[in-house]
């Protein structure tokens, strides 16, 4: 039973010592300790958040890069396609032009040939006429050497005239 009766002295000492301990520990130990723990937890949280953000940023950049690559590829394809069509069109154009040019040349050549032909024909005609004149002259000369033959000729010519 004696154990259950608190001693006044110890009650007083315990009260003083405990309150003093509470005050001193609260001021010099718990405040810095809890503050430091909280601060560290906050900084860890912050670091984790930052890491998460960095990860997201990374993912964003990667996807952006991919987008850019795709875009670049598409652009390249576009350019290639364009170049191809351009080439085709240039070729076609060139072909057409060549054809036109060729046609023109042929036309020219034809005209030239025609001209040449005409000139040649004219020349031939001239030559033929001069030759024929010469021949005729020769023939006439020979024929007109004798009188009978001249008369016959005149008669013939006259016959023609009459016919006309």
């Amino acid at each position, binding site marked *: 039973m004696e154990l259950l009766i608190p001693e006044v002295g110890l009650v007083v*000492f315990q009260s003083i010592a*405990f309150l003093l*301990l*509470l005050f001193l520990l609260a001021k010099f130990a718990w405040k810095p300790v809890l503050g*430091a723990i909280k601060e560290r937890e906050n900084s860890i949280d912050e670091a984790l958040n930052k890491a998460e953000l960095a990860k997201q940023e990374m993912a964003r950049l990667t996807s952006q890069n991919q987008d850019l690559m795709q875009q670049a590829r598409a652009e390249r394809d576009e350019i290639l396609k364009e170049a191809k069509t351009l080439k085709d069109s240039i070729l076609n154009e060139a072909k057409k032009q060549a054809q036109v040019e060729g046609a023109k040349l042929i036309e020219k050549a034809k005209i030239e040939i025609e001209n040449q032909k005409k000139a040649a024909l004219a020349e031939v005609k001239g030559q033929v006429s001069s030759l024929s004149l010469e021949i005729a002259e020769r023939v006439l000369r020979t024929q007109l050497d004798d009188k009978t033959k001249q008369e016959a000729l005149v008669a013939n010519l006259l016959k023609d005239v009459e016919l006309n």
Partner: protein
Amino acid sequence: MDCNQVFQFKFNRLIVVFALFSAFLLGSPRVNAQVDTLHSAEKSHGETAEKKKFEIGKFALHHIADSHSWHVIGEKFIGLPVVLYAEGKVVTFNSDDFKGDDDAKVVVEKDGQRFVKMHEKIYFASEAANEHGQYVALNEAHHAENKRPLDFSLTKNTCTLLLSVVLLLVVFISVANGYKKRAGKSPKGLQSWLEPVILFVRDDIAKPNLGHKYERFMPYLLTVFFFIWFNNMLGLVPFLPGGANLTGNIAVTMVLALTTFLITIFNGNKHYWKHIFWMPGVPVPMKIFLMPLELIGIFTKPIALMIRLFANITAGHILVLSLICLIFVFDSLWVSAASVPFAIFIGGIELMVAFIQAFIFTILSALFIGMAVEDHH
């Protein structure tokens, strides 16, 4: 799963050991009654015991009680200063002046006043000795009936109290310095030993019971937790710096429980008081019926806190002492083969109890404070 199995295994083993132990205890009183010609093996200082039988209860109670001297080893004791407030005067002397007497047989005269010590309590001495040479008047229960001066002596418990306060301050201020020195870095040394415990108090005791208001009560909860834990551990040390049964002393647990009680009632909000005096949500006769019950409840909670800590620690000490005393009860060295391992085992349990009781006191304090400051639900 693995852990669970291990725990289960240990728990089963505990049950077996306890069963054995209780069988042992049940057996002992019978033996005790039979052996009545045992010589007293233990002589408490100054006692030239002529008692035939070794009194295990007396011995254990003597060891867990407060004392005016501090046992060093064998027959050596350190006398502690006695400070009395008697008849309006402060009287001081050393407890050595009693010359090791604890039966009111040696009178110390100081400043015209006469004192005797009996069962570690100081009384005003009677004019003349009784038939046993004791300067006190005894009643039928052999308790002294003399008046007592107010005793503010530096007893064994007071010294341990001061020692533990210094120890706690040194330990935790050095831990706090660790945080200042390595701000934002991982803990080291003592700091990393105690940080998990501090976090345990914060995350498992304060936060679940106090909610977002926990920060205000953290200093108290941490102080009371470490005070009880450190002193429980010191009490388990059987030699000099320890050896006192501080947390098993009703005065100490009373002050601790009183602190929780005062914090509770001074922080109680209007919902708390309304729940006590005019319980909402029940019919009026019930409200009137509940009021005294709730009012009693305010006081029974801290009283339960006080008794729980006191009883658990005291019981542990008595258990260990009793096991050791079995050697003297049977007056045979062979008993030590059984009683010493048992005492060591109980000592191991006491190490756990030291932590558990600190935890229980703190969590119940947090719970009571939490009930008082809880927001309206």
